[in-house]
């Protein structure tokens, strides 16, 4: 259990997250307007989205399929009957004066997400529900000193609100939860998980208590839009509540707004000022009824999800849980790994895992490129690993070759050929170099022979490798040095 230390003792932090994930669909939840990001303001607005008089919503079946797929991906209960309700409030970027949302009967009920923690351990976080709802438009306050403009492109875009149970106990777990959820959504292709563009947004519910005691009063921090900010907001709010309670104060049920620049939150409204949303079933829409057969069909066509893939990587390839979870976090990365591994896993999984996670992803990160734009393909990386495996080059030379591949896009074999980097495995050739190095360094040879400094053999290996420009087979060098110096 992770606790935080107060002046008067330990406190436990209780965290639940509400995540709004924009559904990937060509058109909006109840209209045919496009959902593409970044278009000119008000260029993707249908009569329904603008709430013109007499306009009616018609449910987009694809959005329902996406929500159901997500529910299945969260191992959740799918409700065959769900109801759209109206959440009523006034705001200029909410043209209807109500948001169509699911309230009492969401399309998806309880489920679970297994989060992976940095120490390689896993923990289950409960999902309370998932429901579909419309997004609002955007109020633009920065276009004119005296006026507010409204952009309705986002108005009516389909969102999934995914509500966790209050099962998280630290900022670290919350971060792992968001990352895992994002990974699952991306695997499913139901949300792109892009927090920068606002296609995934997070509200944090948090309370603190003495370990073992009743739950405390919670606050909700809104508008926290990156994993880092969520963790900052949690640390800030947990600290604030503990300080408040320890100084004899009391936490009030309120909504707080996170300020990413300051890393702080401020009170937005208390429970007394909270809206009365006057939810009621939307009379323009019949209850949503879906068939079990359709759910089954969607389920049968789900891709392999990260948890299953991770388990398979551990079982079939003998990877460590940590390496496996790094590889499966992104579907494309896992696919890249398996491509490098080759048909039927013909290459050594550990070697491949190491090269993919350390060298390849390292280079990718350093260059700021996406996987699709990498100058070295999976096949080319496989070619390099083959050269290591069959002894053509050593691991050290391989790193050099890889750098050259990254810079030029050439195949490993070509580079090895052009630069003459092929490993020397001819005993005579290596023996000649060894003899030469020993002859040139009689003092060091004496240190070894007298037993004063047995470690000096390592220095000799380095010298021989240097003299061979790294091409000598290290194992053979070692053996020959021992033979010659010891003899």
């Amino acid at each position, binding site marked *: 259990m992770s606790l935080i230390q107060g002046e008067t003792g330990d406190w436990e932090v209780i965290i639940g997250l509400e995540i709004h994930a924009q559904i990937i669909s060509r058109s909006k939840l109840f209209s045919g307007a496009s959902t593409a990001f970044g278009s000119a303001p008000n260029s993707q607005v249908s009569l329904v989205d603008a709430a013109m*008089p*007499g306009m*009616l919503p018609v449910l987009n079946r694809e959005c329902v399929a996406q929500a159901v797929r997500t529910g299945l991906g969260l191992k959740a209960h799918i409700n065959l009957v769900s109801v759209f309700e109206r959440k009523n409030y006034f705001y200029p970027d909410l*043209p209807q004066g*109500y948001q169509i949302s699911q309230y009492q009967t969401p399309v998806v009920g309880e489920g679970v997400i297994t989060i992976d923690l940095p120490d390689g351990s896993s923990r289950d976080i409960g999902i309370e529900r998932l429901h579909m709802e419309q997004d609002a438009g955007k109020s633009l306050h920065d276009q004119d000193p005296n006026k507010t403009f409204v952009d309705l492109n986002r108005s009516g875009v389909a969102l999934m609100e995914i509500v966790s149970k209050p099962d998280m106990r630290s900022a670290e777990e919350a971060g792992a939860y968001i990352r895992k959820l994002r990974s699952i959504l991306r695997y499913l292709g139901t949300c792109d998980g892009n927090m920068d563009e606002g296609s995934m947004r997070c509200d944090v519910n948090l309370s603190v208590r003495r370990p073992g005691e009743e739950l405390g009063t919670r606050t909700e921090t809104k508008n926290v839009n990156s994993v880092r900010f969520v963790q900052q907001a949690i640390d800030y709010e947990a600290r604030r509540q503990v300080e408040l309670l320890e100084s004899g104060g009391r936490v009030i049920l309120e909504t707080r707004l996170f300020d990413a620049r300051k890393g702080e939150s401020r009170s937005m409204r208390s429970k007394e000022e909270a809206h*009365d949303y006057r939810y*009621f079933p939307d009379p323009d*829409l019949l209850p949503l009824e879906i068939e079990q057969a359709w759910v089954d069909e969607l389920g049968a066509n789900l891709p392999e999800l990260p948890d299953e893939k991770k388990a398979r990587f551990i079982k079939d390839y003998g990877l460590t849980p940590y390496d496996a979870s790094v590889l499966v976090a992104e579907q494309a990365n896992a696919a890249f790994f398996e491509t490098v591994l080759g048909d039927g896993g013909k290459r050594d999984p550990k070697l491949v895992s190491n090269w993919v996670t350390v060298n390849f992803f390292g280079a990718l990160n350093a260059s700021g490129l996406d996987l699709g734009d990498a100058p070295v393909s999976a096949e080319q990386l496989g070619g390099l690993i083959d050269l290591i495996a069959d002894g053509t080059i050593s691991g050290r030379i391989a790193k050099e070759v890889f750098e050259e591949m990254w810079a030029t896009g050439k195949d490993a074999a070509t580079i090895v050929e052009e630069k003459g980097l092929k490993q020397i495995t001819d005993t005579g050739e290596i023996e000649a170099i060894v003899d030469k190095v020993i002859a040139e360094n009689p003092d060091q040879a004496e240190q070894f022979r007298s037993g004063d400094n047995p470690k000096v053999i390592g220095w000799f290996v380095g010298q021989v490798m240097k003299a061979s420009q790294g091409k000598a087979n290290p194992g053979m060098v070692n053996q020959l040095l021992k033979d010659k110096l010891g003899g």
Partner: protein
Amino acid sequence: MTSELTRLTLAEARDALAKGDFSARELTEAHVSAMEAARDLNSFIVETPEKALEGADEADKRRAKGEARTLEGLPLAIKDLFCTRDVQTTAGSRILEGFAPPYESTVTQKLWDDGALMLGKTNLDEFAMGSSNMTSYYGGVENPWKREGDNHKLVPGGSSGGSATAVAGRLALGATGTDTGGSIRQPAAFTGITGMKPTYGRCSRWGIVAFASSLDQAGPMARSVRDCALLLRSMCGHDPKDSTSVDMPVPDFEAALTGDVRGLRVGIPKEYRVDGMSEEIDSLWQQGIDWLKAAGAEVHDISLPHTQYALPTYYIIAPAEASSNLARYDGVRYGQRGEGYDNLEQMYEATRGTGFGDEVKRRLLIGTYVLSAGYYDAYYNKARQVRSLIAQDFTKAYEAVDVILTPTAPSAAFAMGDKMDDPVAMYLNDVFTVPASLAGLPGVSLPAGLSSDGLPLGLQLLGRPFDEETVLRSAGVLEEAAAFTAEPASLS
């Protein structure tokens, strides 16, 4: 000649056009003249004579080419709740003054696709909230009828009062109305015409300004049962743009008018004998029973036990939905925006405070209240439960009978200005029409007689869901028996 053309029924005009007795141009000119001559009645908010005449010429050309459609060249009045492309659509409210939608409602589009012409947009209670047409921002509508020896102006009923007056006053061959709790049937009764509310889901609601979404339904208003059947056939049909519209074949309603009700089982609900109902309404009802019996129908007493809860239930559900439906009129995107504001809240107040009239505000407040936290279960949720009990009453009744006969309204038309200070008395106008609205059932009102002071009185027939044909067939028989030929004062 001119006035003769406006006295034809829609079906007669259709047949005469087909025979070439006159042109669509002549027919339309006659109606345009009548419309212009009757401006005192305030039946229309907007007149579109050029559009109608242009369409008439087009219709004559099509007919000449042998391409006439079912309603080719027949001029109609359209309730100003239907959005009409590039023609001002106000819903009787100031808040939509000047609003010309860039789209056409499904129902009106279907009428135009069948060749009908639009004379103009008719007046109505603001957002269809009212039973007198007195709540319109554009002024009350006058009923073409007057009491004998009394010059008081009377209301045409509401909310489709402008359409009712246009049809009764021979300004249009037929009209569209909408009925949420009786807004077609009650004004039809008050003005001596025939009006039909089809089953909820028959007509698309797309492009009709919403009042209460679970109740609103478009329907025809005309001077005969046959005319209503004709119009209804064009107006209804499945619309993928309205999730509550029903995908069922549209019958040839006119063909249902066989005149034969032998063996038909007619239910007479005892709960509709309400306190304070006038003697003459009661005897008209009895007259209706006798006519149907004489035509060979069987009459059965039935019970609809939850009838007394219908009105309060309606006045919770309809305002609740309205309070949400009317939230979009915020002055941000279209319609009127108030003046003299310094912040957002003030802009809403200025816009909605001046844009809505008193009756609309009253219902928005009621609706907001019944949906509020702490009151939702006691009011809105309870009302929903009672609503399903009312629907069950009808379902049970229809195990024993095929149609139900009732009066349409508890009184004849009243004077303009009456009941304005007593909303509850005003709401009682809908006591006979509201239960079927809550149950989504089809109903027709037709003129069956006159009150002692010479005003038309209506009888209502209600049917099973999607059984408009039986309703129309029985209405046809009653119509023939009643032989209602009285004409409003405005024609003499």
